[in-house]
Structure formats: structure tokens, C-alpha cells
């Protein structure tokens, strides 16, 4: 029992030390003056050079735009396959005064759904990136036609490959990822009918080591350009080490400068600013936003000098047609690898049809 006493005493001391020795906490002045506080939940680190940094920059751009009217808080490195952590992150942000919660990874969906529909947080608005759940009172989602810049990045890769083998580091064999692989493949084939895409799935949204290992595997199989649907810059660095080219994702980050050609990127502020504006005005109702290249929500990062001028011109010409709405990646006759038909001649897939994609198109092969 002596030891019990000692441990108890020790704990009491921790409290006492922390409580007595402190000066009165300064209140966060910025948050008090703001009309709205928006809390972001990030899966990675805000300086990951990829997925999370793109979200973080969107958050910062939104905050700057409103100049003090809107405050932001965030939690980084929240594990999206750990529901407890996801729930805690949202609850802790709300506890600290957030009126809007933005969940920036697919895996946060079920946690946000649970809180939004619990009845405890009816005055809090939930926005979720990349999911398909919503309700009609306080839960909306947002995503974009990243297939458009994916197609363009495929054109770049198809034009520049010598081996005609393109490597693609994929997250999960899940619709969102399949759409991207298919768009990339179609873009590559539009300029190079012999181009093949090899996919290695890492079964995680982001894991620098696994991403790098997958890229190395693809490089060893003869791929000379590596594209990715994963959060970090690992695949680009692996490509650079092997003297190959790389196409990034999410964020324009030439960290592997000798390899980096371009990247399909997100401009999350294009969604956040109008949405927060309508929340401030009290006019917001939950929606399922799907931003396109016309709105500037998704884009192709400026192609680097490694991409020859004639390729740049060709890609930019198609880009213009996409922005003006004349051309969509999923249009015309498209066959799946197993021979079934994804899209008929003269047809253009709508959003619902695109999000029903569950296989890879001809020319793309995936391994788990």
C-alpha cells in the first residue's frame, strides 16, 4: 500500500505543479473576434509536400481571404483508419469553439456521419472531402473532377515514355483511385496507343516507405515514368533516384526536380471560400460539391522545362477544351480490360456513371 500512496502523491504533484506555477492563460484573441471558427482534420503532416499540404494551403488561403472574420484550428496526423481518433479529433475541435468541421480524408467519413446525425451537434456544420455520405441538415461533402488533370498528366507521360510502360502507385483498388488510373491511361493512350499502365496498390492512402517501395518495384519492371495516387513525395524521389520521370499528385512540389514533370493538383480554397461565405451569410445547405477545371478547383500544375514545348502545346490545347467544356476524359468508346464496355461511341459519362467505375480500362493492369 505504500507504493499506492506514493504513486497517488506523485500524480497529485503533477497536477499541483502544473496548476500553481502557471500564469493566467492568455485567451486566443483571434478566435474570439472571429464570427466563425473552422476546424480541419488532416490525415498527414501539414508540411508533407503532398496531400495534406494541399489541404492546409487551401485552409490558409481561405483564412486570409476572410481577414480575421474566420479563424481556423486544425489537427494533423490523425489516423483515418482509427475511428476513435477521428471522433476525438472532431469532438476536440468542436469543444474548442469550431462551428464548422472539415474532414480531409476519406476515412473520416463514418466518424463525421455519426456526429452530424447524433443530434448533439446540430449547430455544427460538417464538410467531408472525397466521401459520398451527407444529410440534409448539417453534413455535406466535396470533391472534384481530378480525372480531368489526370488525363492531361497521362498525355504528358504517354508522350515522354520510351519504354511505353508507365508505373502508377495506387492507394486502394477503390473507385476514386480506379477513376484516376483510367483517366491517366486514356490520356496516355490518346497520344501513344502502345502505352501501358502498371499499377501497384499500397493499401494505404499514404505511407512514404510503402509508396517508395511500390515505385521501385514498378521501375524494376521497366516503367520509365511514375505517377501516383498516394499522399507523399516518395514515388517521385524513387523515380529521380532511378533516373526516371515522375508525375506527382495533389500539390505542385518539385522536390524531385530532376524527375518532376507535372502533377494533377487541388485548389481547395476554390471550394472553401464560397462555402464558408454562404455559411457566414446563413444561406448554406448541405451539398455534394464536384469542382472541375473550369472553376479552377482541380488543375494541372505548370509543366516543368523537362517537358518539350511541342508536348506542352498539345496538352494545353486539350486543357483549353476541358476548361471550356468541349471535352471530357470519359467520352467516346472506352473498353474495360476484361472486354466489357465502359462508355459507348458518342457517349459522355456523367458523374454518377464515373463514380460507378469499378475496374481498370484496357491497357492498365493492377496488382495488390
Amino acid at each position: 500500500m505504500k507504493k499506492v500512496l506514493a504513486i497517488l502523491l506523485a500524480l497529485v504533484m503533477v497536477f499541483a505543479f502544473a496548476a500553481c506555477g502557471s500564469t493566467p492563460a492568455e485567451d486566443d484573441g483571434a478566435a474570439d473576434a472571429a464570427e466563425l471558427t473552422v476546424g480541419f482534420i488532416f490525415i498527414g503532416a501539414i508540411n508533407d509536400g503532398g496531400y495534406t499540404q494541399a489541404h492546409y494551403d487551401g485552409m490558409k488561403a481561405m483564412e486570409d481571404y476572410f481577414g480575421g472574420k474566420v479563424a481556423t484550428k486544425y489537427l494533423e496526423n490523425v489516423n483515418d483508419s482509427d475511428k476513435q481518433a477521428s471522433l476525438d479529433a472532431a469532438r476536440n475541435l468542436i469543444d474548442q469553439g469550431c462551428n464548422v468541421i472539415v474532414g480531409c480524408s476519406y476515412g473520416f467519413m463514418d466518424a463525421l456521419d455519426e456526429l452530424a446525425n447524433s443530434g448533439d451537434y446540430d449547430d455544427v456544420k460538417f464538410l467531408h472531402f472525397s466521401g459520398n455520405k451527407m444529410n440534409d441538415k448539417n453534413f455535406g461533402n466535396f470533391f472534384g473532377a481530378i480525372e480531368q488533370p489526370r488525363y492531361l498528366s497521362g498525355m504528358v507521360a504517354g508522350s515522354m515514355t520510351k519504354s511505353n510502360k508507365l508505373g502508377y502507385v495506387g492507394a486502394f483498388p477503390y473507385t476514386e483511385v480506379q477513376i484516376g488510373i483510367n483517366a491517366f491511361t486514356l490520356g496516355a493512350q490518346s497520344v501513344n496507343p502502345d502505352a501501358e499502365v502498371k499499377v501497384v496498390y499500397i493499401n494505404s492512402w499514404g505511407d512514404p516507405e510503402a509508396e517508395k517501395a511500390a515505385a521501385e518495384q514498378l521501375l524494376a519492371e521497366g516503367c520509365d515514368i511514375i505517377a501516383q495516387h498516394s499522399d507523399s513525395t516518395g514515388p517521385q524521389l524513387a523515380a529521380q533516384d532511378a533516373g526516371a520521370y515522375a508525375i506527382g499528385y495533389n500539390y505542385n512540389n518539385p522536390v524531385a526536380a530532376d524527375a518532376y514533370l507535372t502533377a494533377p493538383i487541388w485548389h481547395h480554397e476554390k471550394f472553401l471560400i464560397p462555402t464558408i461565405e454562404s455559411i457566414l451569410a446563413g444561406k448554406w445547405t448541405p451539398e455534394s460539391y464536384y469542382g472541375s477545371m473550369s472553376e479552377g478547383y482541380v488543375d494541372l500544375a505548370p509543366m516543368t522545362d523537362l517537358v518539350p514545348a511541342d508536348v506542352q502545346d498539345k496538352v494545353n490545347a486539350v486543357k483549353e477544351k476541358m476548361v471550356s467544356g468541349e471535352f471530357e476524359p470519359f467520352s467516346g468508346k472506352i473498353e474495360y480490360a476484361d472486354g466489357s464496355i465502359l462508355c459507348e461511341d458518342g457517349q459522355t459519362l456523367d458523374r454518377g456513371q464515373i463514380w460507378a467505375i469499378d475496374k481498370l480500362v484496357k491497357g492498365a493492369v493492377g496488382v495488390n
Partner: protein
Amino acid sequence: MNFIRVTKRDDLPVRMEVIIRLVAIVLSLIAAGIVILVFGVDPVRIFKSIIEGSLGTTLRIQQTVVKAVPLIITSLGIMVAFKMKFWNIGAEGQITMGALAATWVALFMSDSMPLFAKLLLMALASMVAGGLWAFIPAFFKAKMGTNETIFTLMMNYIAIKFVTYLQYGPWKDPNSNGFPKIAPFPENAILPSLFGVHIGWIIAIICAILIYLFMTHTKKGYEIAVVGESTETARYAGMDIGKIIIIAMFVSGGLCGLVGMIQASAIEKTLVSGIANGYGFTAIITAWLAKLNPVIIIVVCLAFSMLIQGGAYIQIAMNVPSAVSSIVQGIILFFIMGAEFFLQYKVGFRHNEAKEVA
């Protein structure tokens, strides 16, 4: 390191124990404070915020308790095995198998079953599954003297990979657009809440009381302690050591299995391969810090959860990187664990006898 002499302490006056612990805590706060200063934040404010963030409001207390529940029950399970000096490193696997069994009941038995009946069945299934997963290494230890540390550790990976297989294969939810996840539980398989926290906290308290009684007031509990102290004594007293090992491990694994059911039912509301979430390893620390005492386990696990919850709070409130709260947690833990060493051993400098050895 020849010049340092480490000897085991026999008996330490209470006053010394308290002093060593206090020194450890003060040192940990100073060391953590220096690191925090390097990040350009006021350390006193950080420490105050950790307390505020974990106990400041009802919601924060609830958040702290939610984190403590799986830790407490897992620590209790580990404690039973450790009392016997059976190093059960396999709690992760036992939690995972418990969750798997509970999920089978939740998803594949009637949706119209009353809530209470279904939860009871899930709890029983999870305890049996966790118990069986612990029984396997216990059986081989009892019959063939295998090394339980490695055996239980390996069993973790089998359990986790098996759930991964189900998640990507036969149990994949057809409504998830190809995303590898298992279908959510029906309503009658979800643990209800009381005072804003799922009733796992009541289960944790009941478990602590039962294990306390089991260890101190039953013959089996006494036998487990004797085997832990000395197998020779146990054998001399005519105890069936193999049987005691198997029973203790079944209890240990059963408790861990129950954690799997609670987490799957109350938190995830489905089964995921990461359901054990490192609790099986963290609980080794908490059980050990609590000196394998069921009552202190509750206190230590709550303190541990405060650190985690407070760590999340300072990240948001003070905009510090998540690494800062991890560092603070790590440093505090390092010193408190370090103090345990000085409580058990005496460190002195060698003088002449060193030469004799050389």
C-alpha cells in the same frame, strides 16, 4: 561500464520512494519544458493546458474516460499473465480475435435479436475467442516449455493479417465501391452510452473489481501468484503448474478479447484490422507502472489517457505540431519509468572489487 555497480535494493523506506518519484516528475517536467521552449512555446502554459484539456469540461473528461476504457481492461488482462511471470505480449492479437468473434455475432446473427441478448452473446464470443487465442501459446508453454514472449507476439500478426484478409476478401462490404471495409454493425449490436460515454467504462470497473477479488480472494488467484514467485515452490506444494498457466492465460486473453468487442461495438461499429490500435502494447506499460495492482491500473490508465487527450488539446489550442505533444508524453513517461529502475536497484561506483573481476 565496469566502474558502475548496480545492485538490487532489498527494502526502501517510503520516504525515499516518494522522493525518487518526485525527483523523476520534476526532472521530466524540466526536460519537457526545455524541449517546449525550443519550439518557442511557454512550457507552463503547455502543462496547464494538458490538465485543462483533459479535465476542463464534462466533454473533455468523457474523452479521457473513453480512451482509458480499453487500456484499463487490457492492462487487467496483461496483469493476470504477468503476475505469473508469463509474458503475454499477445494482447493485440487477443483483442483482434475478440473483435472478430463479436463481429461475426453482430453481422451474421439475427438483426431482430434484442439488444441485450445480442451484446451478451457478442461479449461471450469475444471472451472465448480472445481466451482461445491466448490458450494456444499457454498450452505449448505448459506442455512443451516454448517461449511465450515470441509465441504470443507472433500470434498478433496472424490475427491482424487474418482480419485484413477478411476486410479485403470475403467480408468486404459490397456497398463500399470497392473500398476494403467490413459492413457496419446493425443497431442491435451497438453498446449503449451512460453519462455520455459508452458503458464500456462500467464494464472496466466491474472487471477491475472481479480481477481484484479473483487475485486476492480465490485459490486460483493465489496459485497464479505462487507460480509467478517460484515454480519450484508451486511444484513442491503440489500445484498443477500447466493447468494454472492455461487457466490464467484464458482469463488474460478473455479480458483482452472483451476489449475487442467493446471497441468494435462502441467505437468502430464494425471490424477493422487496426482494431487493437496498440492498446496491447501500451497496456504493458500501464500494467507495469501500476505494479500489477488492479486498483492502481485504473489510476495509471486514467493518467495516461489524460496525457493523450491533453496532447490533442494543446495541438489545437496552441497550434503546436503534433510531434510536440508526442515528445512531452514520451519524456514524462521516460522519467517515470526511469524512476522505477532506481526504486528497484541501487547504483554505486565500483572501487576495489572491480580489479578483482578484471
